[in-house]
């Protein structure tokens, strides 16, 4: 908890709808992905972020294409929220030549500079030190570009977290450190690996603002994301956001959940942020049932189109192993 935000910005109806649309795109995309895996059409490990949609949906609403994100293996929701087009995203997940990375990076290493998806790392903690570099570049450019570093609760125990937050604070870098605290790191429960009750408290040790946020509540997320991004844009330095959430699908596709109780899982599922926010939009009149159904149909068509595109795409040739190692091709 550590700190309480004073001036809470609130999303207007249009913003709410935008956030919901991003959430729904994430959720539909995730569902379709898992279906493809179940059908044996995708073989790589998949780290679903089902349940964590609110976090990047809200942050991305507040970012432009120029703003940069550095994310992690569990990061496809961050990219979808940021606006990465689904065709090259799917092609990459399927390892195809039309993928963002020609199939060389795959789902753990997607990059798409046009939408500011600059780094996806499979190494716990490593999104943060690199984010600082982009943020330093903003200072050098004199731009107002903001960098968001996504990471998990488990990552808050690794050295890179500490070094990155300290440097960002000393250098007053325009970066937002977004910890998706889903209560588990692989199979390890938060409190069995983390020595502090709220990760946001660690911000005290770096002289920066730190907030524990309900990461499943678009209002709470919006208020804090808004404050953190505005602070960065204004050149006032970094913020640590600890966003409490839950991974509905466990660590990796096929996870057996043996390390958690049935009750806690059911309790979390019962508070599905997508369901709750949808209900809220309908109840407040921000959207109609028909509108949301149409939104869903549009998104599903878009995802299906991306899947079709991906599976029609071919594979890069083995020559690609000699390309992109360096700017200059490696001779055969």
């Amino acid at each position, binding site marked *: 908890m550590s700190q309480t935000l004073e001036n809470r910005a609130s999303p207007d109806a249009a913003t709410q709808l935008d956030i919901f649309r991003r959430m729904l795109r994430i959720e539909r995309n995730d569902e379709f992905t898992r279906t493809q895996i179940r059908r044996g059409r995708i*073989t*790589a*490990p998949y780290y679903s972020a089902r349940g964590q949609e609110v976090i990047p949906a809200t942050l991305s609403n507040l970012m432009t294409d120029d703003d940069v994100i550095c994310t992690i293996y569990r990061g496809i929701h961050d990219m979808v929220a940021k606006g990465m087009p689904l065709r090259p995203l799917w092609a990459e997940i399927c*390892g*195809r030549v039309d993928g963002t*990375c020609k*199939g*060389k*990076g*795959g*789902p*753990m*290493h997607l990059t798409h500079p046009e939408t500011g998806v600059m780094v996806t*790392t*499979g*190494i*716990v*903690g490593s999104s943060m030190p690199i984010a600082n570099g982009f943020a330093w570049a903003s200072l050098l450019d004199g731009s107002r570009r903001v960098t968001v570093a996504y990471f998990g609760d*488990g*990552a808050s*125990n*690794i*050295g*890179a977290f500490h070094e990155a937050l300290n440097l960002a604070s000393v250098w007053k870098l325009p970066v937002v450190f977004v910890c998706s605290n889903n209560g588990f*790191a*692989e*199979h*390890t*429960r938060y409190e*069995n*690996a*983390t020595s502090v009750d709220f990760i946001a408290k660690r911000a005290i040790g770096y002289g920066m603002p730190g907030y524990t946020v309900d990461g499943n509540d678009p209002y709470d997320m919006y208020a804090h994301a808004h404050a953190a991004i505005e602070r960065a844009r204004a050149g006032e330095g970094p913020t640590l956001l600890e966003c409490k959430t839950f991974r509905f699908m466990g*660590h990796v596709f096929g996870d*057996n959940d*043996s*390390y958690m109780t049935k009750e806690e899982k059911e309790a979390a599922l019962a508070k599905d942020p997508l369901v709750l926010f949808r209900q809220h939009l309908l109840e407040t009149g921000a959207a109609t049932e028909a509108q949301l159904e149409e939104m869903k149909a549009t998104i599903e068509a878009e995802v299906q189109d991306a899947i079709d595109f991906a599976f029609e795409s071919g*594979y*890069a040739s*083995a020559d*690609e*192993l*000699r390309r992109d*190692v360096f700017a200059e091709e*490696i001779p055969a």
Partner: protein
Amino acid sequence: MSTDTVEPVAETLKMTGQAAVTAALFQAMEEDPKVLVFGEDVADREGGGVMGTTRGLSSRFGDLRVRSTPIAEQSIVGAAVGAAMAGYKPVAEIMLMNFITVAMDMIVNHAAKLRFMSGGQSQVPLVIRTLTGAGWQTAGQHSDHYEGWFAHTAGIKVVAPATPADYKGLLLAAIQDPDPVLFIENSRTLFVPGEVASDQGPIPLGKARLAREGSHISLITYSGMVANCMAAAVELEAAGISAEVIDLRTVSPWDKDAVLASAEKTGRAIVVHEAVRHFGPGGEIAATIQEALFRKMKAPVRRLGAPYSAVPFAKPLEDAFLVQPADIAEAAKALCAYE
């Protein structure tokens, strides 16, 4: 060099490399109360490891000897170094070899050097178990074979088994060893079943295994590439070429006697590893062979390894990245036809 240890004596059990690792850990912890096991998710509360390799250990040996850790590899290896110097035999798990990059200081500057820098007062008998290898489409940051770095680091041994029996026997030996040992499990071999003697004990470090006898060419290899060399040998046999396959088992110190004896016998040698060929561990072995057997070799010593690139994601690229049996067979045929 011993001949293949899995002679069908007495009783044998069929088990995977993973089961053999689990069995070795049980046996070592049972025999020596100083043996500790720790790493991310290794305790039963966390499911006994993401792959289940350490399942059952914490229930049997208690939460103080078998501990799950935070994600903090530097702290994991650091704790192993301290506990080892205090008289314990920690077996630390670094989930995948690429994650070792955040613990290099502890391994290289500390574990490997403290005996020497202390003039022999300290000893650091730890084992680091780690897993790696391309083939699972885990791409650039989850599949690298960096054993060459550690082979080049004085003060740490590097073990890389290829068969279930060796997974068990070499791990038992690594745990008993008075010095630090890096124990490399390979993703393509760990889940392949094989015969293991029911009483399989330690297999000495530094001794190669004659995986297949042959007379025309020596294939010198270890870890996941043993299987590819064996497959190549079958293909070569059909072409009338008798290939000998030497499984080094221990990359450092490596069994120079066994390798040189084989190379001298056949007069032709190819060193095969999964690691990138460029400045890879094969250089040491090839350079040593040519030096020791100058003018005795019938053809130059060849090296096969991964191309100079990161591990790619797409399956066809991953396949092209890995040395395939056909690549080995082709190289062997060319050497046998040399001049």
